[in-house]
């Protein structure tokens, strides 16, 4: 493949400024939400002593997981040496950094004491996976930053595979760390499972690629550049594998739990009697997030349609958020089992399913995280050369025959 010219975008159109304005507004709303929550205290949110992590964490964990997966496209080029993916790599690295920044912003701003971030970065308890995650996340910024430099600077290109491999391994560690946040919790019936870590890794592949595809299609559509079917089809095929993989992990997790009598109660809750959580699981995670996108991406009538592929990606994102909701909030809503087999009640909601409803400031903060990520990408593509001049079939398809 002949060397591809990488460009900035013009970024002068009304649409561009409109986008900046929209993201800016969403971020302002998020900051206002944060001020409201911090000033009054968390009692104004839907979170409580029963459900301690709420909608902000749903968005934050989703963004962090997606960030790690968004680097996949670059890894395929640098680590697995596929030439088609090389011009796609810089955008992939940018998206990874932006999504992580958005996710971490939401996580930090929801802390009870966000003013103590310096404390969090200077006091470490290394038995805590959270402490390791702080290093993994900040290290990710540094390593992918260097990786991006190697990708954008021509004379550093030959070395990009080494740093790309390092980045690939680092993000596997990072996503393992994120999944282990839940996997290491022995107390809760819905967590405490080794499968959490590899499941989060496959989820990251799926969410990250879906978001990458959406950003790519939007970028090329709105700047009038050529994005050919060859590239789209390759990424489509990859996304199918990742969605199926994530679904497989979820199936294994639930089947294993269903085998153990100890976990029957929590499985009954998630799969059958959990109300909103059951709906979010079957309709959100399985139907909308996995089966319907798989159909769209595989059925011959839709698999070549840009609209259908774009819709499938959006559905994967929606399903991902639903999966996070079921995992994080559903997992907390199911009561802690202090006395197995007994009926329990107290003034502290023992034995009861925790009630939770997302509150406006929480949702505002969560959406602000997405806005931060997309704003960073929008600004990035204007000032640096992230966009290949053309991704048309003539340039990308090695077997291209002109008609």
């Amino acid at each position, binding site marked *: 493949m002949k060397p591809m010219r990488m460009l900035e975008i013009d970024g002068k159109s009304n649409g561009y400024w409109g986008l900046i304005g929209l993201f800016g507004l969403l971020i302002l709303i998020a900051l206002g939400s944060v001020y409201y929550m911090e000033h009054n*205290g968390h009692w104004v949110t839907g979170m409580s002593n029963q459900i301690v992590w709420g909608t902000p964490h749903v968005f934050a964990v989703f963004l962090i997981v997606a960030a790690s997966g968004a680097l996949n496209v670059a890894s395929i080029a640098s680590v697995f040496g596929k030439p088609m993916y090389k011009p796609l790599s810089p955008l992939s690295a940018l998206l990874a950094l932006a999504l992580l920044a958005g996710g971490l912003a939401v996580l930090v701003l929801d802390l009870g004491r966000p003013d103590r971030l310096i404390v969090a970065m200077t006091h470490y*308890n290394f038995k805590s996976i*959270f402490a390791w*995650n702080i290093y993994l996340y900040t290290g990710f910024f540094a390593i992918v930053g260097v990786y991006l430099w190697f990708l954008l600077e021509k004379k550093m290109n030959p070395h990009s595979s080494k740093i790309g491999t390092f980045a690939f391994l680092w993000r596997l560690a990072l996503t393992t760390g994120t999944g282990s946040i839940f996997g290491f919790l022995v107390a809760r019936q819905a967590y405490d499972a080794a499968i959490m870590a590899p499941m989060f890794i496959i989820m990251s592949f799926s969410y990250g690629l879906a978001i990458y595809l959406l950003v790519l299609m939007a970028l090329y559509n709105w700047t009038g550049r050529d994005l050919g079917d060859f590239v789209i089809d390759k990424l489509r095929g990859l996304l199918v594998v990742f969605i199926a993989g994530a679904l497989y992990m979820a199936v294994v997790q639930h089947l294993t739990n269903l085998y153990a009598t100890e976990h029957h109660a929590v499985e009954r809750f998630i799969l059958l009697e959990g109300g909103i959580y059951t709906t979010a699981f079957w309709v959100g995670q399985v139907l909308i997030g996995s089966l319907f996108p798989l159909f769209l991406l595989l059925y011959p009538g839709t698999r070549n349609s840009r609209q259908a592929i774009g819709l499938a990606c959006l559905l994967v994102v929606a399903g991902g958020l639903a999966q996070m909701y079921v995992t994080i909030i559903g997992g907390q809503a199911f009561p802690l089992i*202090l006395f197995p087999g007994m009926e*329990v009640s107290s003034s502290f909601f023992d034995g009861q399913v925790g009630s939770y409803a997302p509150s406006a400031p929480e949702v505002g903060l969560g959406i602000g995280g997405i806005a931060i990520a997309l704003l960073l990408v929008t600004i990035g593509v204007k000032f640096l050369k992230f966009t290949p001049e053309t991704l048309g079939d003539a340039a990308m398809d090695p077997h291209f025959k002109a008609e």
Partner: protein
Amino acid sequence: MSDENLQDSARRKFLTGLAAMSTLAVAPGVTLIAPAQAAGASSDVRWGMLIDVNKCKSECDKCVGACATENGLKSHDRPATDPQWIRKVTVKDPKSGNEKSLPVMCQHCANPPCADVCPTGASFKRADGIVLVDRHICIGCRYCMMACPYKARSFVHEDVKGQKPYMPRGKGTVEACTLCVHRIDDGRLPACVETCDTGALVFGDLNDPNSGISKAVAEFGATRIRADLGLDPGVMYQGI
């Protein structure tokens, strides 16, 4: 500098060193008579509590009230977010209908999962076994609340005013039963133990085989909630 001066300064140094050494030799002996307070918590002691559920009346919640009064916990009529360090739990066997009531608070585990997961080390176990939150470095991430099997911890959801001087607490940090550490360090009993009028709550040193609590456990046995988790809680129950 002349030879004489050098010799003098060498002598001076020797005398100083001798004086310093003798002071240091004497000093430890002097500190032996210092009050025990200055020494701090020691791992020779392991504080624990024994709760006799048979003596616990289901309609009584004096321990809960005493804890709230002692520690300045105020209710805002928002039960979902109001702090609750100790609560009465009603446990009913659905098959036999047998019902018991018992107080549950932070179990002060020897292997506390809350301390394991705290990113800054704010959740920690003191040398004498009391599990505390160092609110100076707590960032309010609530991971310890996710990790606790006993739902012992509360998050402070609003501004706090009128704190007791021996129990500082503020918005945005996590808190739980401290086993009334300020009372224990003063040689007194936790507020809940002192208030209980049926003698259901017994407090003492688990490392001392002659203490009341150790003898009671040795004679009548005791169980721990979720003993299967291997956390070795310092709070034990008889009659469940």
